[in-house]
């Protein structure tokens, strides 16, 4: 099977799954609908609407981690192709990636020393 065919197959699988779920929804709908009664649609919050708007600004207290995460996630994009040819290239590949990772790891240690690895 060619790569294109495989991706088409996976797309078909995704659409098929959606189709099955829609059939289930249709089946449930055919068995009866929801009666609209007052107070039924209040979200789970002890029976009263929440005082503050839910879709407000959220303080991402882990932002120190999040910034480091970006650096590491970019690095992973290079790691996969490197991992595949690693055995073929040998020691040079280890040194190449070792230097790269060492710099990144020093960055992690520096961030740690500056208090980035803390829920702010």
């Amino acid at each position, binding site marked *: 099977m060619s*790569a294109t065919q495989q*991706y088409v197959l996976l797309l078909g699988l995704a659409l098929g799954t959606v189709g099955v779920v829609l059939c289930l929804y249709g089946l*449930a709908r055919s068995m*009866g609908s929801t009666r609209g009664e007052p107070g039924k649609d209040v979200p789970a*919050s002890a029976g009263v609407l929440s005082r503050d708007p839910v879709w407000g600004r959220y303080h991402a207290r882990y932002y120190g981690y999040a910034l480091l995460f970006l650096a590491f*996630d970019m690095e992973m994009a290079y790691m*996969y192709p490197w991992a595949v040819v690693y055995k073929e290239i040998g020691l040079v590949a280890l040194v190449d990636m070792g230097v790269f990772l060492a710099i990144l790891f020093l960055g*992690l240690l520096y961030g740690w020393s500056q208090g980035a690895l803390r829920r702010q």
Partner: protein
Amino acid sequence: MTIAVVLLALLGSAWLLAVIEAWLTTGRLRPAAPLLAGLSHLGRESILPRKPDRLFFETAPVLLLVVAVLGAAVLPLAPGLIIADLATGALFVNAALAYVLVALIMAGWGPNGAYAMVGGWRFLGQLIAYAMLVVMPITAVAMRAESLLTSTIVTSQAGLWNIIYQPLGFVLFFIAAMALAFRAPFDLPTAPGELAGGVDAEYTGVRLAVLRLARLVLVITLAAATTVFYLGGWHGPLLPPWAWSLIKILTVAVAMLLAGHYLPRIREADLLGWCWKLGIPLALLNILIVGLMILVVP
């Protein structure tokens, strides 16, 4: 034919896992209970909360199920018994399961409820903790197999399973997989007893049935990934390959269940701290050790 067999195996494993989970919590073995519960959800009201983000609310359960199925589609159960043996299989598993985060943020945002939203945002912090521990161990696996084809990864372990070759990677991946499947003790986004169900809180009726099914399938997909990457996939004596795959997948899934059964829930700040201060240095060490072993041992 292959597709039908793989999907049946996936559903069957999910059903068995649900039976075992109920057995652990209630002490009663009722094989029909998951099916009856699913059917009864069909007959119940599926309430739409007031002023929801309808698109996000409806998409979340479906998206979670789709990505779990897609992840399972690139993992082999036996030689040839795989829906799509992609050249980038190991990467595709990652890519598909990254959407678990999207689905949970949608499930949190959609219903416009405070508890759900807190659960959704919490999972974003959880992703930042576990994500590196999913991808880094897989890199070390790919280094040994010299390929991202999941079937080649399995055949590379014919002589020695990766759990023995790189035990550190296995431990890290197993923990990260539990966090990705938001199983206890990493069930921060649902947090029963604390967030009133969190992202599950506003789902009722048939939508809840789909969400629960998606969670079970997600656990099976991650157990299958652990099997393929570390437990030698279909390799094993006497029994046919597919039987070994299923035995290993269920063993890993039940191990995840048991671990969650006996451990208290971890706080988000602690999870982030442990993963970044201990987990990532260990994952890098794992890559270095595997790299040296590949060069030294022919």
